[in-house]
């Protein structure tokens, strides 16, 4: 059902964990539907480059794999470049997802956006094109 890449990212997820005093944190999804993703960002104040990115996910195999891949894709990018990491990019990097799991990649995109939004709010900056998170249940 899952591609080898998805299984690899599920079995050996990259960047699992928390970042203490993270520059931005975003949590999306809800437990009712069975998927929650939280993304932590550590952003360089000067260059706005994402130096570190970690995630925690409650969800299915695809939810874990898309979170893992999303953190890999935004790592080392500036916050402006990170905004351009779409769910499609996440899916392609994973060699595709079963149709019923496409929503997991959307959730991963939203989680990144939510973390960027949190960063922007805390640092009083505007990231062009970034909208407030739709499903942020974090409220922290």
């Amino acid at each position: 059902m899952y591609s080898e890449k998805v299984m690899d990212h599920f079995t050996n997820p990259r960047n699992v964990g928390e970042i203490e005093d993270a520059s931005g944190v975003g949590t999306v999804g809800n437990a009712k539907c069975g998927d929650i993703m939280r993304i932590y960002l550590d952003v360089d104040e000067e260059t706005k480059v994402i130096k570190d990115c970690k995630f925690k996910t409650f969800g299915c195999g695809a939810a874990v794999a898309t979170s893992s891949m999303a953190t890999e894709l935004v790592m080392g990018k500036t916050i402006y470049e990170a905004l351009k990491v779409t769910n499609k990019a996440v899916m392609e990097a994973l060699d595709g997802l079963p149709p019923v799991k496409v929503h997991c990649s959307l959730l991963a995109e939203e989680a990144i956006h939510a973390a960027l939004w949190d960063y922007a709010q805390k640092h009083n900056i505007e990231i062009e094109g970034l909208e407030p998170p739709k499903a942020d249940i974090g409220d922290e």
Partner: protein
Amino acid sequence: MEKLIYLDNAATTALKPSVLKEMLPYLEENYSNPSSIYSFAQKANAAVDEARRAIAEIIGAKENEIYFTSGGSEGDNWALKETAELLKDKGKHIITSKIEHHAVLHTCEYLEHQGYDVTYLDVDENGVVSLEALEKAIRPDTILISIMFANNEIGTIEPVKEIGEIASKHGVLFHTDAVQAFAHIPINVDELHIDMLSASGHKFHGPKGIGFFYMRNSIKLGALIHGGAQERARRAGTHNVPGIVGLAAAAKYAVGTMEENAKKEAELRDYTIERVLKEIPYARLNGDRVNRLPNNINICFRFIEGESMLIMLDQKGICASSGSACTSGSLDPSHVLLAIGLPHEIAHGSLRLTLSEETTKEDMDYVVDNLKVIIERLRSMSPLYEDFVKENPV
């Protein structure tokens, strides 16, 4: 061969080699159509009769009350749709429960579209139907009560005898989906006041695609499948002779070893439940502790999601199932777990292990040992667990 521990016997079971051996002659040399007149067909015809006798004897029915079907879903459809048709002048009200198999629930939804009224009874936290609520739900236009014998997910055995008595007292027909119960626990249709019963061969080491429907002689439901004179013109289609032979062979074997196997499985079940609840925190058993199928274990682990758990178990060679949304193919977790009152996020973390007579203590120890590691790993990745730990510091 890679390690394989099969613990999904409520989904299907392995065909017993001895059962296959009895079936083979009817796939090979005795391939005749048992409805044919020539003597070549007599052997197949006799085999079908013999199988019918064996099944009837097991549930205390008459031979002509047993109809061979394709399995449990067909029986459920037959009971509901044809009772609805037969008794539509008496009334259009059907009573069932919220934890039935979808073969019953979706058929009820279909009947609702046809203008029938269905009452879905609640169950308590263990999944038991309330007899009081059942009796209260009966109306003058109630034509059928359909309550499962034992639940496929949480293993709870319903108070079938009492339900049968209530149905009989009120003159309402009673059908039970006994797919998980037949050949696992004793059933006598007269003692339990059962009017109709559906069962399926592959749930007790028989072949797939074969089952039977019991219909009391006094009930004259019409055919669900039209087209021939088989099964006293109530179920058309050339007899699946090898399937029928296999169904009866598997049932005879299962009933003959029932007491011994049930005891063995229940001991192993209880041992596993005890180990899991003792060694893994934030776990709870679903289903009735006592009135429970001997081979069913269903446990929820908080803060984790079922599909992830199943994939990790699979990587260790363990076949299990879950009631999470991802495994149910919808956004909602299992309707059974919701009906016993579990919140969504807990229902997503359910694990069902269903044992067979082949399951050993070593198997279950291997499962629990691996499960501990898997649950810990998934919790370490879970934002729900992270929040819980922050809110509840040790």
